[in-house]
């Protein structure tokens, strides 16, 4: 007997998401993903000075802060056809890399961990055994028995206060929490440790970005922080980076592996079919087609790692058949036409504020798993080394990557690869300073009417901003196709499920009132709903037409 279960709000994400599933025989048979808020940033952008766009669009999300500013500035650079100087390129890569570290590690501990970790069970742990466990997995300070006992005491006092705060009504004691008490206590201690450490990653971004959240130093043609490009600031950045590398290597990755070892069957749950990435961390300046990226872009269809394809942005379309917009055929972002309708929730009809992005008409997963798979498929040595080590350690086959477990592991793998590479970018900056290079902004001229495209991979996946400015150098149109729209968007005209919907099919659910299994997979996509929803014009009902020049 099929039973419909609605989970709204989905917590421990960014934004407002509603997930509905049909459960039969203890497994998910069908699923619908619905974004519940929209704000209309692209309408707001119309008519404005294009240079204001990065600051407005950055407010798409404060968890994935910086990323929209980066995509936007790349679109502006493209519209005016400027090549940014090397120092500016390095600064943007360093700030963007720091955002990956902050976003990914915070996601695991603060947003995802409680799906795998039973906090209440940590109260029963033996601090000595916890210490042994931690020290076997990694080499990190504050890992002695008294350290874990101190955490346990704090937790005990907290629970005994009777005010359980964010742990109230959690699914503690759920039959599918599998970690022993010591692993739970260790995870809680590491969660608290990361809460204090993430403050320092934010400082890294502030060094060259001005502040975090919401940096303020990217401009068309480069960056403004020339006065911070000095040995003192680079050393400050580097030494924070070293602390983060130590945490990633000795705490984050070991914790992911420890959790994974108890949940190995999750290597067969939560997988999708197609994967897409734009590429990341340009190593030279130029139009998107000319950039050599440290992390490569591409598309993989049907899990076929042996046949990764080059990505062609012209093949991206967005559909609105099952979204709260008037129907149009699938359209490329430069040609978007959008007319709103009142949001009436109907799983047989329209049910989300998200549109449905498609590549060659197919839904694609974006994010760390896509980024890692595509890099692996293209023979990226550094990615390959870490992936192979993880698979070997867990004694699981490569096919296990196509899953919730794989997605979660990919997030950690990508964090390590990026953090380690950032050290060499700091060195690159130093070498430039030694040569007397201080150029951070390249000259550019207002082009009049122009199109610009800013594509880049960000922590949640492939992010694209498209700008069309008019002959008066004002924004005529602006479109954002955002990672969470790819991942959490609805069905299309052909009825193809969006990636998260597909991934939920077959998920076992022991207790529909405590759907922790569903949360494990939904959270593995690291949803950011504020990001993903865009354009409607309920006021003027205006039709937007993008001219292709």
């Amino acid at each position, binding site marked *: 007997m099929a039973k419909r279960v609605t989970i709204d709000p989905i917590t421990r994400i960014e934004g407002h998401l509603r997930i509905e599933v049909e459960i039969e025989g203890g497994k998910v048979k069908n699923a619908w993903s619905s974004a519940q808020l929209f704000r209309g940033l692209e309408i707001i952008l119309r008519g*404005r000075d294009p240079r204001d766009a990065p600051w407005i669009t950055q407010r798409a999300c*404060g968890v994935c802060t910086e990323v929209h500013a980066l995509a936007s500035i790349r679109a502006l650079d493209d519209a005016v056809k400027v090549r940014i100087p090397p120092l500016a390129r390095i600064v943007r890569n360093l700030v963007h890399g720091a955002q990956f570290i902050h976003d990914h590690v915070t996601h695991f501990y603060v947003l995802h961990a409680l799906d795998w970790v039973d906090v209440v069970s940590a109260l029963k742990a033996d601090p000595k055994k916890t210490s042994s466990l931690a020290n076997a997995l990694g080499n990190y300070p504050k890992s002695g028995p008294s350290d874990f006992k101190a955490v346990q005491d704090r937790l005990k006092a907290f629970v005994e206060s009777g005010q359980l705060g964010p742990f109230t009504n*959690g699914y503690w004691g759920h039959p599918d929490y599998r970690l022993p008490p010591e692993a739970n206590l260790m995870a809680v201690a590491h969660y608290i440790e990361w809460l204090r450490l993430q403050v320092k990653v934010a400082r890294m971004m502030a060094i060259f970005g001005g502040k975090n959240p919401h940096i303020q130093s990217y401009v068309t043609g480069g960056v403004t922080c020339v006065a911070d490009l000095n040995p003192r600031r680079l050393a400050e950045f580097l030494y924070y980076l070293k602390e983060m590398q130590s945490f990633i290597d000795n705490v984050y990755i070991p914790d992911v592996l420890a959790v994974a070892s108890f949940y190995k069957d999750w290597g067969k749950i939560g997988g999708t079919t197609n994967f897409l990435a734009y590429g990341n961390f340009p190593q030279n300046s130029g139009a998107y087609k000319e950039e050599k990226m440290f992390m490569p872009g591409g598309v993989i269809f049907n899990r076929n790692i042996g046949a990764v394809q080059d990505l062609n942005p012209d093949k991206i379309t967005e559909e609105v058949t099952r979204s709260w917009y008037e129907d149009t055929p699938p359209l490329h972002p430069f040609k978007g036409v959008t007319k709103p309708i009142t949001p009436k929730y109907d799983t047989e009809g329209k049910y989300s504020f998200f549109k449905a992005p498609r590549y060659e008409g197919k839904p694609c997963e974006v994010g760390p798993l896509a980024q890692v798979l595509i890099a692996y498929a293209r023979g990226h040595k550094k990615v390959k080394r870490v992936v192979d080590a993880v698979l070997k350690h867990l004694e699981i086959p490569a096919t296990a990557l196509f899953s919730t477990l794989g997605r979660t592991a990919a997030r950690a793998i990508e964090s390590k690869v990026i953090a380690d590479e950032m050290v060499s970018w700091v060195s690159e900056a130093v070498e430039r300073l030694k040569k007397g290079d201080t150029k951070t902004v390249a000259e550019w001229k207002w082009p009049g009417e122009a199109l610009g495209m800013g594509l880049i991979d960000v922590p949640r996946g492939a992010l694209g901003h498209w700008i069309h400015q008019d002959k008066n150098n004002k924004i005529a149109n602006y479109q954002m196709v955002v990672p969470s729209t790819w991942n959490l968007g609805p069905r299309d005209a052909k009825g193809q499920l969006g990636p998260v919907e597909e991934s939920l099919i077959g998920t076992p659910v022991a207790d529909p009132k405590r759907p922790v299994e569903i949360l494990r997979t939904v959270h593995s996509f690291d949803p950011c709903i504020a990001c993903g929803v865009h354009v409607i014009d309920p006021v003027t009902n205006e039709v937007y037409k993008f001219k292709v020049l």
Partner: protein
Amino acid sequence: MGHEAATGREVQGMEHREILEQVEAKGLNRRDFIKLSTMVTSVLGLAPSMIPKVAEAMVAKKRPTVIWLHFAECTGCSEAFIRSTYPWIDELVLEILNVAYHETIMAPSGEAAEKTLHEAIKEYKGRYLLVCEGAIPTKDGGVYGRIGGRTMLEIAKEATSHALATICVGTCACFGGVQAAAPNPTKAKGVGEATGVKTINISGCPPNVINMVATVVHYLLLGKLPKLDDNGRPLFAYGQLIHDNCPRRGHYEAQEFVKKFGDEGAKKGWCLYEMGCKGPETYNNCSLVLFNDGTNWPIGAGHPCIGCSEPDFWDNSAPFYEPL
């Protein structure tokens, strides 16, 4: 932690009632408890005015409850909040406050989360601090923003009506923010305007965590909320202009201006007035306290201020690169 004896009557009265309720909840007789408190106070050689404080200390102290609601927002203010270093965010959540509802960090989802909000409002009715992040969409009855099937407007009206005080964090909750920028497609409003409730406004996009935490700590230590300006913003943070305390003010006075980003003036940290800086019209303390534990701030990173703590700055400060 205690309130001074000479705190406002309202606070003292609330405290008295709260203590006696807790006493009863523990199965003690009110009259006996008052007698006991009186005796203990005199034994300790304290003045009779200290009786309520002693009573309070004898009852297991409950942490003040915070309900944090997210509306039309980007979660940047929550992110800013966890950058706190004194106290650390784990200390705020585990030892100092009772964060009874916060969607970004709470364990349960769906029905269990809705239950948590409902229970928290019920149990702490009249006594919780409501923190709001994000604006309220109001067009078409507010259907453009929903949580658990209810509009944000409905949730905000309910939650503000039972709160001890409503604190808006971020320009969105205070004044409408980015979604309210022209043409405001969803008729987004600040929480105060949408609900008719008077709110304490900690504006900024996002606000400096120092100012968020300082406001809460002001209440905890002094038993009352700080003095506010005409926009409901605490004067201790928003009483002066960025320009008043800018380290580049000397360059402004000497007419040493950056003309192009990255030029020789930029390398010397010259004034960004000609690059569009809105510091002369923006009330905030960024130039004094900086961001991220003194690491930097926008002007320090060579970029003009965009006036993010001012109402309607998305329209009034724009274009951001045109000088005042």
